[in-house]
């Protein structure tokens, strides 16, 4: 036998069910074929937990990815969700199209440092600019694993490859990139720290806009040695959680997903219909209160009624504005630290649907006459341009 046995379909007798009656096992996919010990498998497990805890029906989810080790992982979670494995680096375009066509889909994009920071860098940047409503997880290990471990664009200066060569090229830091390009939810975490990662994933799923999480996810085969700056040990020794996020699922607290299990708590928010938060109006922005003491808790209410509680750990960290966060991350990185946590969030920012004024319902739900108004309407439109 050269392949692994499938994970037995048995479970611990106490395995819990969420509010839509599913167990964590129901959110799994097929067996991973990544190297044993890959950080990506831990991220997959964290994603499974986040979706399960949010009681999201798998069929309402679209999993999108490009090419690479990371991009294989959507196969390993939510076997009943929709999925699209796109061309290398082109996942953001597919996500933009899918989101435009069906805004009720809960979109999760999985990418890697090769897919997002090299071949797909442009695509990645524009998805952020546009504010595509999705959770974008970048599994960052600093090497091209599928092509046997060359340095990727996120490899730090001075990091050593497994065979000894040292990287001289400046890295592209996806967190700094996201901050500078206007992403409205920016976080960094570590595959080996599930307590931190799961609440951030949940907050990212509840965020109405482009939620970006850079997850340091060590490559056990090509980048987990001494001299690597993306190894399990290096990351553990250098990461500093500067702000802790807790996520409370408002939908669950308020009595579950609209009672009927239709699961409109996430993204398919009533905000699109209610005048107060109508895309036409400038949303009332909840200002993140300026200075709160280390250890104090700041609550941010999300569109779907859930709450993100931020607890400041480093008193020098100011998550209030983009520039301060940018400067802080730069400075700590220069000091040899890896700052982690939900670094920046703008819950009331405009997303693609608001900015483009897209129709409030998924195209599939529109009547044929609305989608295709007929030759008469086309002629009238053409007449306007004459």
């Amino acid at each position: 036998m050269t392949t692994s046995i499938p994970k037995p379909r048995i479970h611990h007798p106490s395995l819990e069910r969420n509010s839509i009656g599913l167990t964590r096992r129901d959110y799994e996919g097929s067996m991973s074929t990544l190297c044993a010990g890959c950080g990506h498998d831990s991220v997959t497990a964290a994603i499974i937990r986040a979706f399960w805890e949010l009681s999201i029906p798998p069929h309402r989810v679209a999993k999108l990815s490009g090419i690479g080790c990371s991009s294989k992982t959507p196969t390993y979670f939510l076997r009943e969700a929709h999925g699209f494995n796109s061309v290398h680096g082109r996942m953001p375009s597919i996500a933009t199209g899918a989101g435009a066509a069906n805004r009720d889909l809960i979109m999760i994009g999985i990418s890697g440092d090769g897919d997002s920071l090299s071949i797909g860098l442009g695509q990645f940047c524009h998805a952020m600019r546009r504010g595509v409503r999705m959770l974008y997880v970048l599994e960052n290990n600093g090497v091209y694993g599928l092509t046997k471990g060359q340095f990727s664009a996120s490899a730090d200066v001075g990091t050593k490859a497994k065979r000894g060569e040292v990287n001289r090229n400046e890295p592209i830091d996806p967190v700094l990139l996201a901050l500078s390009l206007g992403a409205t939810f920016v976080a960094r975490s570590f595959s080996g720290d599930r307590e931190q990662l799961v609440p951030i994933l949940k907050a990212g799923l509840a965020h109405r806009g482009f939620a970006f999480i850079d997850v340091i996810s060590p490559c056990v085969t090509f980048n987990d040695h001494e001299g690597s700056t993306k190894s399990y040990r290096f990351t553990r020794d250098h990461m500093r959680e500067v702000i802790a996020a807790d996520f409370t699922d408002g939908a669950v607290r308020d009595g579950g997903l609209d009672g009927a299990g239709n699961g409109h708590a996430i993204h398919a928010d009533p905000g699109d219909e209610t005048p107060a938060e109508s895309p036409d109006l400038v949303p009332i922005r909840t200002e993140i209160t300026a200075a709160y003491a280390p250890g104090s808790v700041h609550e941010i209410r999300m569109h779907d009624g859930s709450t993100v509680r931020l607890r400041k750990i480093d008193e020098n960290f100011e998550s209030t504005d983009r520039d301060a966060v940018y400067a802080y991350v730069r400075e700590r990185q220069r000091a040899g630290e890896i700052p982690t946590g939900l670094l920046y969030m703008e819950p009331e920012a405009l997303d693609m649907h608001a900015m483009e004024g897209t129709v409030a319902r998924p195209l599939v739900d529109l009547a044929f006459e609305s989608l295709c108004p007929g030759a008469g309407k086309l002629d009238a439109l053409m007449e306007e341009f004459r």
Partner: protein
Amino acid sequence: MRPTDVTDPAYYHRVVDCQWACPAHTNVPEYIRQIAQGLFTEAYLTNRESNVFPGILGRTCDRPCEPACRRTRIDEKPVAICRLKRVAADHRDDVTGMLPTAPAVKNGKRIACVGAGPASLALANDLVPIGYDVTIFEKLPRPGGLMRTNIPSFRLPASVLDEEIDYILGMGVDLRCNTPVDSMESLLREGYDAIFVGSGAPRGKDLDIPGRHDSDRILIGIDFLESVHFGHITEIESRVLIIGVGNTAMDCCRTVKRIGATDVKVMARRGRQHFKASPWELEDAEEELVEIVENHSPKRFVIEDGILTGMEFDVVEWYDDNGRQKSRTLETVTIPCDAVILAIGQDNAFPWIERDIGIEFGDWDMPVVDRTTFQCTLPGVFFGGDSAWGPDNIIWAVEHAHQAAISIHLHCAGASLTDRPPQGMNLLSEKMGLHQWSYSNAYSHAVRAKMVHVDLEQRFRDLGVEVELGFDPAQTAAEVQRCLNCDVQTHFTAELCIECDACIDICPVDCLTITHAGNEAELRGRLTAPTIHPEQPLYVSAGLPQTARVMVKDEDVCVHCGLCAERCPTAAWDMRRFELLQPYAGKPAGSSKYPPLPLLR
């Protein structure tokens, strides 16, 4: 909690629930794997090493292993361990050349055994091969004790019994049948180096209620079975009541059905949940249309003109009185019958042991016997089997004999009986390749195979027709795969762990946790999945290299699928086959009991 010491054989032994529960600690997973490979002879010998009578026990064992089986804790029935034992016995080749033999030069020590039941025979099995002269005194014409006289041949064919007894007698045991021992004092005078009492619990309990002595149609269960066995009773009346609901009662009710009774009732004082009979023996009796009547307390025998015509019972209901079960009578009924068999338990009887020769007797007129050494208060005299502490099962008698044999060997060497040889263990990696193990690690969802029985009409034709047919090849093939191979241990090396969580994520039953150290009660509150059976051990590693946290494993529902080890990048987890090495008399743990087998075919 301190890091678990897995170099103590007891830790991994406990994980092999069946082997831990078996009094003789038979290596169950090993013989099931051997059966899976068609190595029936090897499977038989694996059994025989510890339990001595695989063919007999494969039909009659009380199976303490099965309720312990791990499969019962993941929502299913246990592996049919006992039935598989019979498969090994039924399909083995001739093993006579592979059994231990007596050495050419004896050690000059002479041992006397009283009673030729399982205890004395198992004792001889251990002592003869290391040079002892063993003499067994038996009051009946044939050896076997209760295995022969109390277990009907439709459950245990005489040929199976004879064959396994002959293996032992063939080593050169001096068996003296029709030779009851009437006096311990005179036996002591014969100068044996040690005496082993394995005379069982030969006296059936009586029921002294009105009418008991007014009819000859009121029989004692074990005496009745013995009489049937020796052909002294060949028929019985049509209406028979059996009093008592233990396994002897089951044997009695099924026996009378075969010698003429048509209306058979088993009368129980209490409700079904309190029955002493094994569930499968109850099922087998009911399949043979025996009626089991609950909550009937015997009151008197009804004798008319000197003839037994029925029996009077109080119909009772039970209620709880401050934690004690008490009964109240609802009504009194008379149930007509032509014969009654009393099967309400057995007593020990030692009328032949003088009370002034240094053998102390304690409560219930039972000899005072040390629980570890099996020696009574007179040095050099040992007890085992039912004669030590009252009725129990064959497998217990075998284990008593192993321990008594060790004591006798120490006694004859002048060594301390409490200085007992330790158990040992082997631990060998099962890794063959990236996803390959030298055991079948896939989880089988097969349901427990059901034993096929001879049809009712045919089985009543003759007392000797064995009811259970044994598993067929397809049943065997499926049943062996239900075994979870609990002896293939998840062995952890803390220094290698990089805390990638891969094992935790892949574990189908959530039995792994990486967390900060703590005491057991508090640690159990922080597990990935909550503790269900706190009596099941927790494995706790030493501190892990990167964060000083610890790896914790709740052994409870681990299915030994090996996926943690497959997903471990550093082989911190490995699947290692644990083999418990047991010491036997004159054989320290690890020395082979049997001559080496020919290479695998």
